[in-house]
């Protein structure tokens, strides 16, 4: 166990798996000479060479598509798409190809690959501040992972790389600097599904994932000071979706708030809320409250941007609302 950042945890996972298996290689924009746009692969080019750390042209379809092809023929590529905003340029390759080939050809083709990409914001403007996890998680054939902690980042990435299916691994740019305890065991593997209780509480259940899970823990601490005990559920993966911990929690607390960083309408919060209603209908004392980003293209000006993304205050307000306090 060592205390390292989310960024270091990802680098460890990549480095260990590349040393373990020659078939693993990285391809993406500026992962080599530049050192990685978020410095995750800093030093990798020197350590593994240009054959296994490929600085790709700006060609999202080509990056993902060639990785799929290489996976079909036996390699284990880890393709990096600089941000999820550019990932939608490769959506055809991900949705119409990676997700379908195993099924469409009757099991003849396997696509053991990982697409690493990043959500986040910070005065980056409308085209660089989006969250699309709900789109990937809508598609049968894909596995979608959204780690919130350094330990999950490492353990789930290693499992994804060793797996036999296409995995969309969505990181968060505002988590790279966050530290946490991470086992340094080379075989530290975590399942690609399974929600977790990050904090126990008896009054209200907060269901979320990725950066919002960290934010929820901070909000829960503040709520505790006013005597409200919130249970925080980190979904960790969005496909397959494990609702059990959330449902069990709601059966106990009878109140639920879902908080996500994507837009509200047709976003991830809709499915999470819908399933809570479906599976715990008789246990809910009040409608589930959804907290999500305001439905606007992200404005650049910081005074406006800070109004768009959910913060602790909005979450605390939502908890008060659901508890009717």
């Amino acid at each position: 166990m060592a205390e390292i950042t989310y960024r270091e945890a990802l680098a460890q996972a990549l480095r260990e798996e590349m040393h373990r298996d020659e078939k693993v290689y990285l391809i993406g924009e500026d992962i080599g000479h530049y050192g990685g746009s978020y410095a995750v692969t800093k030093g990798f080019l020197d350590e593994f060479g240009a054959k296994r750390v490929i600085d790709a042209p700006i060609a999202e379809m080509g990056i993902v598509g060639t990785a799929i092809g290489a996976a079909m023929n036996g390699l284990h590529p880890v393709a990096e798409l600089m941000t999820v905003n550019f990932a939608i340029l490769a959506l055809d390759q991900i949705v119409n190809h990676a997700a379908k080939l195993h099924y469409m050809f009757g099991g003849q083709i396997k696509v053991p690959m990982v697409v690493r990409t990043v959500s986040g914001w910070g005065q980056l403007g409308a085209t660089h501040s989006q969250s699309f996890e709900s789109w990937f998680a809508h598609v049968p054939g894909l596995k979608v992972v959204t780690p919130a902690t350094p330990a999950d980042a490492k353990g789930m990435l290693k499992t994804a790389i060793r797996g036999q299916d296409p995995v969309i691994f969505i990181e968060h740019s505002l988590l790279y600097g966050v530290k946490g305890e991470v086992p340094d065991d080379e075989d530290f593997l975590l399942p690609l599904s399974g929600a977790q209780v990050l904090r126990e509480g008896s009054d209200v259940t907060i269901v979320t994932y990725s950066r919002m899970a960290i934010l929820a823990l901070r909000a829960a601490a503040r709520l505790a000071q006013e005597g409200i005990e919130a249970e925080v559920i980190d979904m960790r993966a969005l496909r397959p979706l494990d609702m059990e911990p959330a449902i069990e929690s709601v059966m106990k607390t009878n109140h639920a708030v879902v908080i996500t960083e994507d837009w509200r309408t047709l976003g991830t919060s809709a499915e999470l809320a819908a399933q809570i209603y479906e599976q715990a209908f008789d246990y809910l004392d009040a409608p589930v409250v959804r907290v999500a980003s305001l439905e606007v293209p992200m404005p650049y000006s910081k005074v406006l941007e800070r109004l768009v993304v959910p913060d602790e205050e909005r979450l605390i307000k939502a908890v008060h609302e659901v508890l009717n306090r």
Partner: protein
Amino acid sequence: MAAKTDTTDVAAVTTKVEASQNGKENGHGLVSENATRQHALDKERNLEIYRQMLLIRRVEERTAEAYTQGKIGGFLHLYIGQEAVAVGVVSTLIPEDHLVTHYRDHGYAIAKGCDPGAILAEMYGKSTGVSGGMGGSMHLADVSRHFWGGYAIVGGHLPLATGIAQSIKYQGKNEVVICVMGDGSTNIGMFHESLNMASLYQLPIIYLVENNLYSMGTPLKLHTSLTEIHQKARGYGMPGDRFDGMDVEVVQEHVKTAVQRARNGGGPSLLEAMTYRFRGHSMADPQFYRTRNDVEEVRSQRDPIHIHAQRQYDRGIFTEEDTKRISDEIEKEVIRAAQFAEESPFPEPEALYANIYVEERN
């Protein structure tokens, strides 16, 4: 069909294209020492070529019939008229070489040696189909033969084929990849991204364009700025070559050169085979964009099967008996194949949830 549009240009196939000449010469150039042994080899090889082309033609005719009888559903794109390309291309490969193509894939499946029965069964949606009935006409594949299948998103398979080539180089193997597409597919972004990466990394892949003069119903000169598609290679510092796709010997010669280059580490090529489809784009095509005469003109002058057979007769390689025997065998084979498809079972409901993931949980 509608009045012939000023935009169609069957001349491109009725009059053999330049490149085809030298191709033909080389074709004859094949003849070498010991004449009689050579003659036997020649005959065997050319009869096999003839057999494959005719088998494709007959299977396609049977397929069309089954479609009109409602036994095959969805989109159906026939290969009739383009047989010389698939057969010529595959004859230049070793079994380990890889083939990836678009939805007009029946010809390649047959040339790569898939059983016509399993091909028809796939189109019938039967569990005995090459893809277990999950893919249909557009998604025939037999990975054991390195035939990675037909793909229905135009251009979508180019990055995949490029990646397969990348994995070959990565693993130090000397296999090559043939990536087949239509003329219309050269306009999509994935063409650009794939050819750039293939050239940048000097990958062992041949992008083969079957230029049949139409992107669905849109004539060549209305859909692409550079109608000499092989010249698009210049944008990637890649060799390009155009040739007559109706003459199987010409196809063999030109593809062989590119395959050798790729196998010897010389990198990718962009090849353009001038061809023509004798049927509509798909069975649903009303063909407003060309006239019956357009089609008849080509079919009568440039039928690839006829061109091949006639040359072998002229060269004294084939006799009427040879071809008669083969077409009789094929007739039986097609009947057997159709019967196999008819009698095969449909997939069980369990198949619905099989193969979504290799590992349900991990």
